[in-house]
């Protein structure tokens, strides 16, 4: 018996059965059932209504019954309801046949779903267009002898098939197609129910590494209220096959410790089932970690389920440097470091957080992040427009304007790009940017949804269709850029007329909210106002989640959803409960950005040490410790300037400008360390590389500063040797030197020229991981 089954009772207090309710419709209908516990025995209390065939509940007659699962850790029951048990359900092309081709991989981009199809047989990509697929399949069926249909002979490898064997002649898939052909091989009528939702079970499960594969169950919900077992009709794939491998039948095998999701999809619907793979042998004795706020409740609850012990609370020195760099983008000064480290106040951490959030550096940091997100300064508005929108963000952050108001102002922005104090250049991505560009950008920036694929075809990994894409684009149909004054002076305007034309229907598209209803565009009205209201409603499913995820990533090093702008069913958050709680707290607070950040910084989760323990060494997604990361380009540049006492001069900016204040443009140092050129919306690459290393070792950024007149070295040179090490370490690493470090510095000073020795010491510190990383 696999180890998983030994520990399962520890993980789950009572067994669970999936799906949590079973609905059967039609003669012979059945539902696959799974449990999350070991050694379960299933039984139905009324065999006249339903019976059990291995792991399937099979309909017998109309009525209700209970399915009982008796497991080693307890007993659970779930209801089963059977309707129309005597009715023979005709096979539907859309519901029964088309999914088979998706499940079999036939509609994939590398198979018949490719733009040119394969060998003259073309299917729509991932089966999003059943009408098209029906027309393609019809010439390949034989109504008089269904078994001789080319479509079946190829799939069963009875005829030569480049795609090889797809299913057997005695399979459910084969039977479904034959039945459909015998029924007349018709396309569905307009009354045929359509799938409206697909669910996968268990939504989350914990499995021991190397345990037996476990079944994923898929349930499809239809427009007429019926429910069907779709386990055999969907396509399965693992987001990370190194952690969990899944086969075409939905059997998921835990391979390596970690966490991933199994994607389940068919007919334009998708669902995900998370699988957490643990090492049962490494399960520690858990101690209850103190909770500072609701963030810790969610983080530590999951760690406990996973058997991961969080790291210790960070030391004051760790916290001090970390929170300065994360919240203000600067190092604490020597004086600030001394004051904090010597303070005995029990509230000193929260007080420091409050002070940092109130400071101008905090606003500058977030203004820069917003400027990067909105690609300020790279467009035709140029640096002038970039500064205006940066300053607008800076002011908004400083006065803690609600995120809903910021988003509304951006959505409704218009006006000349080089004038005023508003974000008028927000839409000015380029002079010819259009409604489709705005839909792409706004969904990615604010809603965390990458919908661009659906511009050309229905989204391959998600539910979004071209109708969704152009429906969102239609909100921006009248947004335009016009020239005013000189030819580099443009203005965003909202035209009196304008519409988006659907590329397929060639007809105007009505504005439609993502996952929502259509909106009427009236004369003299600005439809973007309606969009802004929808986006900023507290129950909007996208806005708050997308933003808290971005903020979370900044402070915690990894988004609850990665990439931060790629929310989709098939890319679920690592801690859904935490994401929901953060989003709810944020929206209910009036989208209070500082409050959100204050909550995160005051959490024990944020304040955990970066030092791993045996239990959490491999964890990289559950926040069991502070994840070390390289300083962002601007923070590092400013930290070097701060440590050396030699400011940078950025081309085009007045002397005294810090890197964090460089609202557009870049420098070699900044670009080398990942500052984006803002050509596209993307996240920074925070990985270190050899170019960065070489630049720090021998490039200008450090070398020139070490020898510059007026540097910190000049000041240290005048100090008594015994005081120097402390001053150097507090200024650069925000901590006191260890005895060994102090001795090493003092010895270096004695051994040679004091100035050169200090240059060496400072060079060594600036090139150390401790300086280059936040930890």
């Amino acid at each position: 018996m696999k180890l998983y089954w030994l520990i399962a009772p520890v993980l789950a207090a009572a067994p669970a059965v999936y799906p949590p309710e079973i609905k059967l419709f039609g003669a012979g209908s059945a539902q696959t059932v799974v449990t999350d516990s070991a050694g379960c025995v299933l039984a139905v209390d009324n065999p006249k209504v339903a019976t059990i065939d291995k792991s399937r509940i099979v309909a017998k007659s109309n009525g209700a019954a209970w399915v009982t699962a008796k497991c080693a850790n307890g007993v659970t029951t779930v209801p089963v309801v059977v309707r129309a048990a005597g009715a023979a359900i005709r096979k539907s092309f859309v519901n029964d046949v088309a999914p088979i081709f998706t499940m079999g991989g036939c509609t994939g981009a590398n198979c018949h779903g490719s733009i040119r199809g394969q060998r003259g047989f073309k299917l729509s990509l991932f089966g999003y267009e059943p009408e098209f697929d029906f027309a393609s399949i019809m010439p390949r069926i034989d109504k008089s002898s269904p078994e001789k249909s080319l479509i079946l002979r190829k799939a069963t490898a009875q005829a030569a098939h480049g795609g090889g064997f797809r299913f057997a002649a005695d399979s459910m898939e084969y039977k479904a197609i034959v039945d459909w052909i015998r029924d007349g091989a018709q396309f569905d009528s307009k009354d045929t129910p359509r799938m409206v939702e697909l669910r996968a079970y268990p939504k989350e499960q914990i499995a021991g590494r190397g345990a037996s594969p476990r079944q994923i169950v898929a349930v499809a919900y239809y427009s007429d209220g019926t429910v069907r077992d779709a386990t055999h009709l969907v396509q399965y794939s693992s987001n990370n096959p190194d952690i969990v491998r899944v086969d075409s039948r939905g059997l998921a095998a835990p391979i390596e410790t970690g966490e991933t999701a199994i994607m389940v999809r068919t007919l334009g619907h998708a669902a995900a089932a998370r699988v957490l793979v643990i090492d049962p042998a490494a399960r520690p004795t858990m101690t209850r970690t103190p909770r500072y706020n609701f963030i810790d409740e969610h983080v530590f609850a999951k760690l406990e389920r996973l058997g991961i012990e969080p790291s210790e609370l960070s030391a004051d020195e760790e916290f001090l440097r970390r929170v300065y760099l994360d919240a203000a983008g600067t190092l604490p000064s020597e004086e600030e470091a001394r004051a904090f480290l010597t303070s005995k106040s029990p509230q000193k951490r929260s007080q420091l957080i409050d002070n940092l959030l109130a400071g101008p550096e905090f606003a500058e940091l977030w203004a820069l992040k917003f400027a990067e997100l909105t690609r300020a300064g790279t467009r035709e508005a140029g640096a002038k427009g970039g500064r205006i929108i940066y300053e607008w963000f800076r002011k908004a952050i400083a006065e803690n304007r609600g995120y809903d108001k910021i988003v509304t102002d951006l959505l409704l922005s218009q006006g000349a790009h080089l004038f005023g104090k508003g974000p008028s250049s927000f839409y000015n991505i380029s002079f010819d940017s259009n409604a489709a560009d705005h839909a792409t950008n706004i969904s990615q920036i604010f809603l965390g949804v990458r919908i661009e694929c659906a511009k050309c075809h229905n989204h391959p990994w998600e539910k979004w269709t071209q109708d969704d894409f152009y429906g969102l684009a239609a909100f921006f149909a009248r947004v335009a850029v016009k020239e005013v004054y000189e030819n580099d002076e443009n203005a965003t305007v909202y035209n009196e007329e304008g519409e988006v034309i659907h590329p397929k229907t060639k007809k105007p598209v009505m504005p439609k909210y993502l996952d929502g209803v259509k909106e009427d565009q009236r004369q003299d009205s600005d439809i973007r106002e309606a969009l802004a209201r929808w986006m900023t409603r507290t129950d909007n499913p996208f806005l708050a989640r997308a933003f808290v995820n971005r903020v979370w990533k900044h402070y915690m090093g990894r988004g609850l959803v990665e990439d931060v702008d790629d929310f989709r069913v098939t890319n679920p958050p690592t801690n859904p409960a935490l994401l929901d709680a953060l989003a709810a707290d944020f929206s209910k607070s009036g989208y209070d950005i500082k409050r959100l950040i204050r909550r995160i910084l005051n959490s024990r989760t944020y304040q955990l040490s970066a030092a791993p323990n045996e239990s959490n060494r491999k964890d990289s997604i559950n926040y069991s410790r502070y994840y070390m990361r390289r300083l962002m380009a601007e923070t590092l540049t400013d930290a070097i300037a701060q440590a050396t006492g030699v400011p940078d001069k950025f081309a085009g900016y007045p002397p005294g400008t810090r890197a964090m204040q460089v609202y557009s443009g870049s420098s070699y140092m900044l670009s080398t360390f990942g500052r984006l050129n803002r050509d596209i919306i993307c996240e920074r690459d925070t990985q270190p590389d050899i170019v960065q290393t070489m630049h720090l070792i021998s490039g200008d950024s450090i070398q020139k500063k070490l020898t510059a007149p007026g540097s910190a070295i000049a000041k240290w040179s005048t100090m008594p040797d015994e005081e120097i090490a402390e001053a150097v370490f507090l200024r650069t690493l925000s901590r006191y030197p260890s005895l060994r470090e102090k001795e090493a510095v003092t010895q270096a000073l004695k051994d040679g020229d004091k100035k050169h020795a200090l240059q060496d010491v400072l060079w060594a510190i600036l090139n150390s991981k401790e300086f280059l990383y936040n930890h």
Partner: protein
Amino acid sequence: MQRVFLFLFLPLLVSADLPLLEPVAQGVFPGGLRRGSESSITIRGRNLQQLKRAVISGDGVSAEIVDASAYLAKITVRASATTEPGRRDLRLIAPHGSTLTWIDISDVAELTEREPNTELASANQLTFPALVNGVITAADYDYFRFDASARQTLTFELLATRNGSPLDGVLELLDTNGKTVEYCDDHYAFKDPRIIHTFNSTGTYYLRVYGTGESGSENSDYRLIAGAMPHADFALPAGGRRGSTVEITLHGVNLDHAKELVLGNGIARATAVRNDQKSATFRMAIPLASAAGVHSLHIQGAALPIPFVLSDGPELTVSPGTARRRQDPMPVELGTTINGVIDSARAADYFVIRVDQPKQIVLSVESMKLGYLLDPIVLVYEENGTRIAWQDDPTTNTGKEPANLDPHLTVALPKEGRYTVAIRDSQFRGDASYLYRLTVKEAVPDFSVRVVGAHTTLYRGRDNIVNVRVRRLEGWKTPVEVWADNLPRGVTARSAIAEPKNTSYTGTCGERHYLDGTNVELIFKVEPDAKLDLNQVTFRARGAMNGREVEREARARYWKSRIRVTGDAAEPALFATIADLPGVVFQTPERSATGRVTAIVTRLDNSNEPMRIEGEGVTPLDVPAGTTRADVVLTKPGDVTLYGLVSGKVIGQSAPIRTEIRK
């Protein structure tokens, strides 16, 4: 060494590809002078050699050339104590052409920045009111230190592009520690910044002046006007009917001490009837005999005037916010000019007109033309709310030409009844200074005529092109004939017809654009023996529509200057210089730091003979006909001139090249 110039007089059409031979003024420093004073002004530019005259528009200001070389000229300007303050046209006239730039007449003592003032510690002290003339070179920062008291409101105006400077300036207000309190890059339509700031606390502050993105050059001059002087953003109404008495309210800051208002050069005067910090009201009688059009209103003690239009029709003033209800629009009579302000975002003013029969009307807006930042859009609705017409800009602005954002919409009202007219900002913005003048009147088809450019050079022995723009107004739909008057002996130009269709051109992406009117080319034939001289040529245009004949005189319009600003030159005539083309033109840099120079060569002598390039300090170089580029070695430091010789005769020369020879 005696040089003989050989000029060939061939009957050629002057192409648009000719290198620039006329004088060009690129920098004017200082950019003006106080009235009642005399100032030595330096002009930087090209082709400034042999300047003979400097002519300043208007009364009371005169200028004379003191010195002129290819890149530099010095003039002395005198302004009488009673002359009208404001910007004046300054024309520089040479035998090879003329140019137009501007100088500014102020009413304040003028200073010049003292370098070095590139950091806080070396900031120049400002005492208010202050008018400082300065120059921003590349990566240059000019710092000024001043004291301000709590609740004091100070204005800081940078006059640069508005006066023709290439400086795209930035003003930044800094606190005593050098931290930014406020900044402004662009405030006015053509990049000039302005800060009006009320200080929270008494102390020492700094003002930093620089070029955006650290841009700048020796020509990037500016005039900084700073102080607690009265400042008006606009007057409401912004115009008045001739022969009427108008109550004018100025809106701005520091207006509590504005006592006297002067219209133009003393056309009318008024004293304040009530004042407060942000407004001042005057009652002014406008003489019937005054000239219609845009004039300046001068506030005693203020640095800059504001525009005021003298009209011939009824005027209506709408207080901000009083015509905002679409359901209850403000009634107006046809023929009225409405003065209003769109002072808040997403606001519009609504008016209702009644017509008793189908009628063609025109909605004409003045806002950008008067210097305001409103980007107006006008819309017309039927009584049932259906929108029947709207116009944002008369034509697409493409950067090819100076923009015009002021709508001029002619619309046919299909039946008798009430129609609602709306005006708002096309970008849905609002601001306390977004002033408009909207004239709603019955359309009387007409046209206007402008010469494209205020000066030109007509070359002897050639056909020369002058563009004239006919802009059809109020529904004019028939051709217009354009011709030149006052042509000197030896110069002829046939009339041309402007068809009733806007001139179009193709954009860089193949798209079609239209000009705001129709351009006609008048071809001036200049005989080889025409007198070399400056002539003022006038243009007229005539057309007929619906049995009514209209004849208009053209005004010269400065058009594509360094900045893409347009406006009517003070003199309506085209300044046309009759000159000879040289046989060769060398386009060379002003300086050579390497002892080598690349000259762009344009042969105009129509000869197939090779040309020798030589001169004192020049290694002789023979170049075949058709050469367009010559790499020349300079052997002598100092000013070196290239001469082009064909068959031993000089056919042209370069401007002097300031040469350094580095080893």
